[in-house]
């Protein structure tokens, strides 16, 4: 069963701006799915259409087999949405916001209180339940939106950049929470994020959207194996005056005591260190230049990666 199924989904806004072009996408029930793309790629438009805040121009969208417009009641009952921007009433209390949302789904207030308490406790907002929402910190507001989206117990949860502007500690605790509801409650999660480490860490499958088209849709693992090279930052034990010439290993000098080295999958770090030692360069420490998915993401968007993972000429940059 597909939790979300999109067929030939297109959206053209007034004025002719094409936001989505014939999107086909299936998200399996129980999946933790990442939807990535640069700003303006069409992620939020896609989410807006699924939660009916934006009308589609053509195509079909189904949530657990229910058409989002023709069978709106059934589809919406199964769907929870955490939008990118805060969209709750700043004059209501935390508890009122969550309870009211449950009641909009037809859940009686008395019954909704259990679910409300559970999610407010799990998200660390129970002590703040009587606080007026506009007085909350940014991180609390984000968690409030998650509690609100879950209070009616949806089977599909869509989060549009839920950790934007959230500090690292809180982000990690939100990751753990999302992983738990995905694993234990079986909630299918679709996540859009700019933090690619987040997608790499959480998502089992990833789609990359750019200029309204899905340009990649595969498992996170398969996507990462397409990355043919790794870049490392090497801190040197003693400073160097010029870039060392190491055959087969592209080296970039960043400063007197720091270089960047790129190695292919079929090469080994041992070879690199051996050749650096031959050139009189001694390494004191090493780290990954960037998150792997981030590197791949940038290359995909720049059309730098062909099917075998080799770097090609940038179409965008040309």
């Amino acid at each position: 069963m597909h939790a979300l199924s999109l067929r030939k989904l297109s959206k053209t806004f007034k004025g002719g701006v094409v936001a989505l072009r014939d999107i086909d996408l299936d998200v399996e029930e129980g999946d933790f799915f990442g939807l990535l793309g640069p700003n303006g790629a069409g992620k939020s438009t896609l989410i807006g259409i699924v939660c009916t805040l934006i009308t589609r121009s053509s195509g079909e969208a189904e949530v657990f087999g229910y058409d989002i417009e023709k069978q709106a009641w059934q589809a919406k009952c199964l769907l929870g949405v955490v939008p990118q921007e805060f969209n709750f009433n700043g004059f209501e209390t935390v508890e009122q916001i969550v309870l009211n949302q449950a009641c909009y789904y037809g859940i009686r207030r008395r019954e909704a209180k259990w679910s409300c308490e559970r999610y407010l406790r799990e998200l660390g907002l129970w002590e703040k339940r009587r606080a007026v929402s506009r007085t909350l910190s940014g991180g609390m507001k984000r968690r409030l939106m998650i509690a609100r989206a879950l209070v009616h117990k949806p089977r599909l949860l869509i989060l549009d950049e839920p950790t934007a502007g959230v500090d690292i500690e809180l982000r990690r605790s939100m990751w753990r929470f999302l992983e738990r509801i995905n694993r234990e409650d079986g909630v299918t999660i679709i996540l859009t994020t700019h933090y690619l480490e987040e997608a790499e860490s959480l998502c089992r499958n990833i789609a990359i959207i750019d200029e309204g088209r899905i340009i990649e849709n595969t498992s996170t693992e398969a996507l990462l194996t397409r990355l043919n090279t790794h870049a490392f930052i090497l801190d040197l034990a003693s400073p160097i005056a010029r870039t060392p010439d190491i055959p087969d290993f592209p080296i970039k000098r960043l400063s007197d005591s720091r270089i960047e080295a790129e190695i292919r999958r079929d090469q080994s770090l041992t070879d690199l260190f051996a050749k650096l030692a031959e050139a009189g360069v001694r390494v004191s420490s090493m780290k990954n230049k960037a998150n792997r998915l981030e590197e791949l993401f940038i290359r995909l968007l720049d059309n730098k990666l062909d099917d075998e993972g080799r770097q090609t000429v940038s179409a965008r940059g040309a």
Partner: protein
Amino acid sequence: MYWERSLVALATIARKETTRYLRIWMQTLLPPAITMALYFVIFGNLIGPRIGPMDGYSYIDFIVPGIIMMAVITNSYSNVVSSFFGAKFQRHVEELMVSPTPNAIILLGYVSGGVGRGLLTGFIVTIVSLMFTSLQIHSLFITCSVVLLTSILFSLGGFINGVFARKFDDVAIVPTFILTPLTYLGGVFYSISLLPDFWQVASLANPVLYMVNAFRYGILGAADINIWVAYALILLFIAILGSFSLHLLNRGVGLRS
């Protein structure tokens, strides 16, 4: 099941709307009480005795129904327009739109808030008016039904204004340039029998005249118009504005991209 769930949603919107205008009672309930009390003092007590009787009633008795109705109209309208536009502006209207709440229930919920505030303000103004005169109700049914229907009608008007409003200025345009002139020229302070023939006929095109006069008939038993024509017009306008509001919601006008 569907209707049971919809009723829970309706009760929630109604409760939320009621809480909203009660929470800000200094802005919603107190000002009309003060304004209308000033009308009673100035037009009723100070100027009224010099004007003399109107349609056979003392001037203050004549204007009380109109002033009550004026409070009901303006408050029903402004409650819905400000609440719905506020929900759009703060984007928390999206809470309702992503939920399965039917559009008819959303409309009913907002209208119930407008009706609640309109009737409560009308009640407060009625209590204030009792400090200046004693009211004799000619027909309780006509009084209550006309005030309720008028409140529904102007709540729907406020809703349509809220749907189309894009900025705060748009919320004030209709009440300032359309609603207030129609209300003041709708026979609140005078009987249209005092007007020249042309303006008497012209006044009949003002829908507020029918509401004010129908309400006055309910209280005093005297009106410038046929009471049944007033009922028919009010119901017709409710049907038109209600259908149009629902159409706007179904199309997502001002709400969906």
